[in-house]
């Protein structure tokens, strides 16, 4: 793992045009080059170059690929992943042919779907009558038993079907049962009359008719249901039959999309192709040899170090171990660090886990989080295409870490599902909250608040030190010395802490009476004031714009005032903000104590149920609050000290690139 962002190199290469396709394939397979549009190069170089319109329309490729995906999904098949992409199988896309195949398949599916619709409508009609029989709503049904004296019963059955009616023969008899809906009686009556329907006077048969027709209705219902489901399966089968062809089309379309994406960064002279892009330094040799091989050695490759390019133009690649991915995502969610600065991932991990553990310290509850996290991760691993639920992939991985942190702090504070099963390794948190931890290292809530404030100070100073390291790497010495997050800011914070702790130690009566405080603060304030002028003169020396003296003074005074305000209020509020860590920890301990008391009031299973329910509630609510508050402290109190978020992310074009180009 790199402590800083990965060093990058800018590649500029020229290859012969006839080898450019091979180079595209090689670069795509390698997937490490973050291309730069050639128009960002030197304008003089640009004049000699031209761009070429693409031979294929990428939007068409993407649209057709989406068609393939929709058809696969209609057949309940998974969409292929980038793993099936093989650059060696890249061909010119036969769009017309693909369209024909897809149109034919779509037509087949639509005709099947039409059949399914008919089955569904038949099913709906049967279901309605079935429901009325089941719910004993016979008043909506028209059930008759009789004989057909004219015409064919098949014809009558067919005509009744228009109204969703059924005609069924009474076993071993010439009589028929006719079931329709009463609302259709005005149309069914003339129909039956036309077929010479003679109603039977057999009361017993009339009574039995409902159970007789019920079987038929059930059978018809099953038949229609089966038919509807069969069509659904037929749709799946038709798509499945074409799966390999669809996969092949999908792969070729996707490969062509990616190649076209790469080609769109290319520029051309009459015989050569020129392209440029960023590569992590440790992969530069790999890229070089891939281009050399693909172009059969007929190429010119130039490397530019990132130091020769404005920092803000260099894409930022961060190398963190896979295990730290949840914390990497927390960083990415905030922003991209500046090129060459500290990779915050490991620091975020330590800070986040410590904060969470302090707020949610319990071995048992932590174990639950670990188990939930492991189960969730296992479920996603088992079904890689499963969409993220409320507990997303990232959250499940994070839960495992949070659970372990909670367990460690739980052991330190002696809490096991809220019970003190084993002695605390550090101090008993719950006893301290309850105020009966005499003789313990920490014996009341003030002690807990003190710990979290000290923890906050460590976090803020870690942020400041990281900022100083970043500023040294960026060679921003004026900012390092005179910024509110620089050495002067750090010194003022230290003076503030000294005064604050002195005040507390005196029993909140007076600040420490030390002679050096006033001169140090004054010097710091003067240095802060000088910053505006110093920056201006340095900028002038580098050829920056000249300002009116009045404006310069006004700007510097304003900047100074804002800085001073930010230092005095910002540091104070940032430090006190960490009291929330104690607040949530105390709330956690208090809630557990309350549930324990409640459960002790109820005997037997009720008591156990209250205890379990209490734990579940605390895990869900407190776990969520602690997670959110830790995130908030990281983003606002920690990141604001050193993380400018001004970087641009490194996004190489490769087989694993996102399906739609985002940049």
């Amino acid at each position, binding site marked *: 793992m790199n402590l800083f962002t990965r060093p990058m190199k800018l590649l500029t290469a020229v290859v012969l045009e006839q080898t450019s396709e091979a180079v595209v394939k090689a670069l795509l397979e390698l997937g490490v080059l973050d291309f730069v549009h050639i128009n960002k190069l030197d304008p003089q170089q640009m004049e000699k170059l031209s761009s070429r319109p693409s031979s294929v329309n990428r939007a068409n490729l993407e*649209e057709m690929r*989406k*068609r393939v*995906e*929709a*058809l696969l*999904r*209609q057949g*309940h098949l998974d969409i292929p992943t980038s793993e099936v992409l093989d650059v060696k199988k890249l061909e010119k896309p036969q769009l017309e042919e693909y369209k024909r195949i*897809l*149109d034919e398949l*779509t037509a087949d*599916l*639509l005709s*099947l*779907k*039409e*059949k*399914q*619709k008919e089955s*569904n*409508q*038949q099913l*709906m*009609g049967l*279901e*309605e009558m079935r429901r009325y029989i089941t719910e004993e*709503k016979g*008043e*909506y049904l028209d059930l008759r038993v009789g004989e057909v004296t004219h015409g064919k019963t098949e014809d009558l059955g067919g005509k009744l079907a*228009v*109204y*969703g009616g059924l005609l069924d023969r009474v076993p071993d008899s010439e009589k028929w049962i006719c079931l329709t*809906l*009463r*609302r*259709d*009686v*005005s*149309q069914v009556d003339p129909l039956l009359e036309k077929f010479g329907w003679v109603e039977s006077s057999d009361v017993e048969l009339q009574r039995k008719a409902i159970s007789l027709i019920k079987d038929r209705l059930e059978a018809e219902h099953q038949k229609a249901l089966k038919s*509807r489901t069969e*069509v*659904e399966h037929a749709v799946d089968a038709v798509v499945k039959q074409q799966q390999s062809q669809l996969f092949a089309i999908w792969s070729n379309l996707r490969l062509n999309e990616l190649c076209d994406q790469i080609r769109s960064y290319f520029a051309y002279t009459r015989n050569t192709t020129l392209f440029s892009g960023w590569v992590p330094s440790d992969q530069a040799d790999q890229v070089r040899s891939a281009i050399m091989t693909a172009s059969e050695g007929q190429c010119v490759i130039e490397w530019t170090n990132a130091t020769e390019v404005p920092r803000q133009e260099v894409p930022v690649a961060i190398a963190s171990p896979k295990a730290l991915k949840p914390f990497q995502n927390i960083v990415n969610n905030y922003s991209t660090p500046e090129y060459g600065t500290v990779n915050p991932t490991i620091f975020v991990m330590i800070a986040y886990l410590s904060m969470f553990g302090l707020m949610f310290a319990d071995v048992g509850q932590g174990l639950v989080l670990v188990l939930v996290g492991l189960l969730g991760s296992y479920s996603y691993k088992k079904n890689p295409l499963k969409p993220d639920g409320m507990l997303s992939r990232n959250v499940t991985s994070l839960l495992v870490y949070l659970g372990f942190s909670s367990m460690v702090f739980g052991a330190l504070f002696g809490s096991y599902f809220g019970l003190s099963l084993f002695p605390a390794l550090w101090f008993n948190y719950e006893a301290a909250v309850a105020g009966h931890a005499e003789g313990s290292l920490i014996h009341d809530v003030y002690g807990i608040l003190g710990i979290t404030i000290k923890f906050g100070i460590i976090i803020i100073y870690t942020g400041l030190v990281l900022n100083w390291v970043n500023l040294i790497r960026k060679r921003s010495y004026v900012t390092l010395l005179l910024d509110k997050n620089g050495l002067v800011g750090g010194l003022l914070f230290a003076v503030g802490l000294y005064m604050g702790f002195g005040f507390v130690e005196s029993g909140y009566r007076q600040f420490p009476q030390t002679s050096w405080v006033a001169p140090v603060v004054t010097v710091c304030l003067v240095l802060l004031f000088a910053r505006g002028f110093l920056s201006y003169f340095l900028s002038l020396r580098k050829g920056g714009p000249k300002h009116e003296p009045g404006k310069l003074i006004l700007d510097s005074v304003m900047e100074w005032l804002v800085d001073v305000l930010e230092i005095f209020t910002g540091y104070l509020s940032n430090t006190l903000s960490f009291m929330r860590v104690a607040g949530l920890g105390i709330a956690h301990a208090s809630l557990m104590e309350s549930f324990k008391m409640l459960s002790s009031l109820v005997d037997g299973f009720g008591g156990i149920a209250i205890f379990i329910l209490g734990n579940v509630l605390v895990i869900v609510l407190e776990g969520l609050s602690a997670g959110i508050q830790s995130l908030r402290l990281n983003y606002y109190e920690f990141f604001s000290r050193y993380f400018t978020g001004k970087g641009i992310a490194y996004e190489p074009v490769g087989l694993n690139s996102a399906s739609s180009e985002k940049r």
Partner: protein
Amino acid sequence: MSRDPVTVYGFINAKLRAKIGLMRQDHLMESLLRSASLVEAVGVLRDSRYREVAHAYDQTGDLQQMELVLLQKEIEMYREVQKYLEGSPATFVQHLLGKIEVDNLKNAIRLWYSSIIRHRPIRHRSGYLFKEVILHPIDWTALINATGWDAVLNAVKATPYWDVLKAFTGQGLEQDGLFVMESKLDRLWYASLMQSCKDLSRQDREVATSIFLLEIDLRNLTILVRHGGYHQMEADKLRTLLLPWGSVFASPETEKYLAQKSGERSPLSIINRYFPGLEQTEVQQNRLGLHSDEASVLENLKIEGYLATRRQALYQKMLATDPFTIGLSLAYFFLCKEETAMIKAILNGKYYGYEEEYIRGVLG
């Protein structure tokens, strides 16, 4: 004691704003329009918040079943927002849901009418009807199976609709059709809506009435143009169709319009006074192509188009101004309903094999 607007709307409006943000991001309509067939359009829905609609297609292959799911989602939308509100705003949202009930009731009565009065088999069509309780205990099954008008009345006896429907008879409906009855049902809904507007706080009332009075005005204008102008309905009859709220209803221009001979009526003075710009509104060319021979339909489309534009502007304003009023919920309902209507139209267009450009033209 009424609660402060921030407490009432803080949570729900933040939630709705996030949902509106997501709706605007996802380019769902564009993807639907660009899909090559119904199968592909369903594929687009599969990965969206309309996945249940796609599921219905997988199971049934039936477009109308998909529409039923969309209706269910619309009902859920109102209920979800209502759940997070309380007091007069919650009652107001409930009244808005009442419009779906009124429309469902009209659909059910149309089906009944088709079956019993017009003797056309409705077979499975009742299956596409939403039959659960929306607001009032209408016995949908009894209604659809009613063999006479009395049974229809019986199915709605414990609801406010009974008072409206009892004024009609089966014989009368057979002769005059359902139009007047449907207008009365709509009028009942508007009456309850305006009543519930009165119970809202001042800010909410202003926001809600600005929207609904515009709708009422344009509805009244449509009635005047369509029935007063093209169908030359008598003034007294016409007056009973008008909704008794808004500027158009109370305006002297409307009185003058009604006083004119039916063949000589011109709505221009009303339009010029209340809807400047409407006369200049152009109906889409392809719409013209669709109904070139039907002037009243065109006029209707023109007013609808104008209403849509004005409403759009009003809702945009609501999204940009005070976030702690009922306005955001109304804007959310509007956007969702608009989206649902477009999805239905696109799915139908794809089902019948219309080209993308044609569907775009029809959607306007």
